[in-house]
């Protein structure tokens, strides 16, 4: 009964908060640099979103034939073609979106990230095969990074594995979670739905607490809603987590025509990271069974309470941020 109450509360909170606005689940340290061509081969560069470390500390390297003295960059007759690198990407600045606006033709966007610190500017005629490959490499890596750094998402998946165990039930549950977060990720990325970042993060924390409660119920011999309909719970909360994933893409200001592909590759990256985590957890469960190394009876409830405590700590912290912003 308590679990159903929690689920209702989460859904009510989510429904109350749905409104069109941008969102972010994990704060991404990023910057947006724009190069606008003012005459053939000559560009004016400016930071439209300054990185947190300050624009003067960004170690930007342009193709060797270009002379860069911000705000000016002169690439001569050859134009802006070749590799652009930022060598000091790190924990305080993980992503820079580079926009190149030529005199004629469409503006193009490139993402420089810690996973992919070099982008190749291809000049006229893009998008080409190279553009798509570069987009795939960048966003698959970005998706992997996002899920691996999202401790809340991983803890939720861990809770699901704990309740469901292995086998087909787990396959179905993880598939439902994937479908749920893919659907809401796409909807949020295309602006169909939008939830403010802070309440959303609080809801995500609450979803983990819900799973913690369900684990305790299962250990007491009660059959909770997750044990009965794991796919339904995974799908429902997958929707919430998916909107959180979309936040990572929302701040990058990608061109709309590149968004579907970026979204697809990002989702593939998220799935790769999630699958790697699930396989690792399953391998460790197998190893513990093989070694007959099980948690003693007195400590059986500890993991559930640990999951619940961490998630409630996150929940109250995130809730405080919601009220602080009002």
């Amino acid at each position, binding site marked *: 009964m308590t679990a159903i109450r929690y689920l209702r509360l989460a859904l009510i909170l989510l429904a109350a908060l749905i409104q069109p606005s941008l969102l972010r689940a994990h704060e991404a340290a990023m910057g947006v640099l724009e190069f606008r061509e003012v005459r053939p081969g000559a560009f004016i560069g400016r930071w439209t979103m300054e990185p947190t470390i300050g624009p003067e500390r960004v170690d930007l390297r342009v193709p060797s034939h270009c002379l860069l003295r911000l705000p000016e960059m002169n690439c001569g007759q050859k134009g802006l073609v070749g590799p652009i690198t930022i060598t000091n*990407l*790190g*924990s305080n600045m993980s992503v820079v979106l580079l926009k190149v606006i030529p005199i004629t033709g469409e503006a193009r966007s490139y993402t420089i990230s*810690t*996973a992919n610190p070099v982008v190749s500017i291809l000049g006229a005629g893009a998008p080409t095969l190279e553009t798509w490959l570069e987009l795939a490499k960048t966003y698959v890596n970005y998706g992997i*990074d996002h899920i*691996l*750094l999202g401790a809340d998402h991983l803890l939720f998946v861990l809770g699901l594995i704990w309740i469901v165990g292995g086998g087909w039930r787990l396959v179905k549950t993880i598939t439902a979670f994937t479908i749920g977060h893919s659907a809401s990720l796409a909807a949020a990325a295309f602006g169909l739905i939008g939830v403010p970042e802070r309440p959303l993060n609080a809801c995500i924390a609450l979803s983990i607490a819900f799973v913690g409660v369900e684990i305790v119920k299962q250990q007491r011999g009660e059959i909770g809603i997750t044990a009965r309909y794991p796919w339904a719970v995974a799908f429902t909360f997958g929707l919430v987590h998916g909107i959180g994933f979309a936040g990572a893409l929302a701040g990058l200001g990608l061109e709309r025509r590149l968004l579907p592909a970026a979204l697809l590759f990002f989702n593939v990256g998220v799935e790769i990271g999630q699958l790697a985590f699930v396989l*690792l957890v399953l*391998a*460790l469960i*197998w*190893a*513990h069974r*093989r*070694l*007959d*190394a099980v948690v003693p009876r007195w400590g059986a409830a500890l993991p559930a309470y640990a999951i619940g405590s961490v998630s409630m700590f996150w929940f109250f912290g995130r809730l405080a941020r919601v009220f602080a912003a009002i």
Partner: protein
Amino acid sequence: MTSKFGHLWILAAALFVQTSAAEAHIVAARLGDFYAGALHPLTDLRDIVLWTATGVLAGALGAPKGRWLIPVFPLGLLVGLSLGRIFGAASTQLADATMMLALGMLLAAAARIPTFLLCAIAFAIAVMRGAANGADLGPDTDRLLFAAGLACAGYGAITLTMALTTAFKRTKSDSSASWRTIAVRALGGWIASIGLMMAGLALAS
């Protein structure tokens, strides 16, 4: 042909040994200090050989003895990391090589050592490697996250290696089990050889 393979091995080993600092920095920049701690041991051949050898030895001795290492090994890594921070990093090359030699010989001889001794050896190795892993941490590194990553990696690596070894060895003493025992003992011989070579290198340099 053998000479070509020899060159390849030396080249591969040299590349493997050289990767440490650069790879660790890339991991930290991309995924933060938790993953830097978790993946840092992969950048040092000594960690890979010693952790694997410890897991195989514990697995070869059987689950009842080996399972004690699940808490002992990560705890040793944390103690080593703390001691390294307090007392500073010391060169452990010879000690690592000696441990490799000892573990390899125990495996090759299929020695039945008591649980207490197994735990003491594993703890000593973990302390040494924990200190070594913490030696080249930058001032910007979040030590708590790094330590958590290292401990998780130690737990995962030792648990999986032990389980894989017990699964490989099986428990029945039929003919298939005997060649498996010989394979594990042969692996011990290789580990002892690596330890001997590394000890020679440490003494020579």
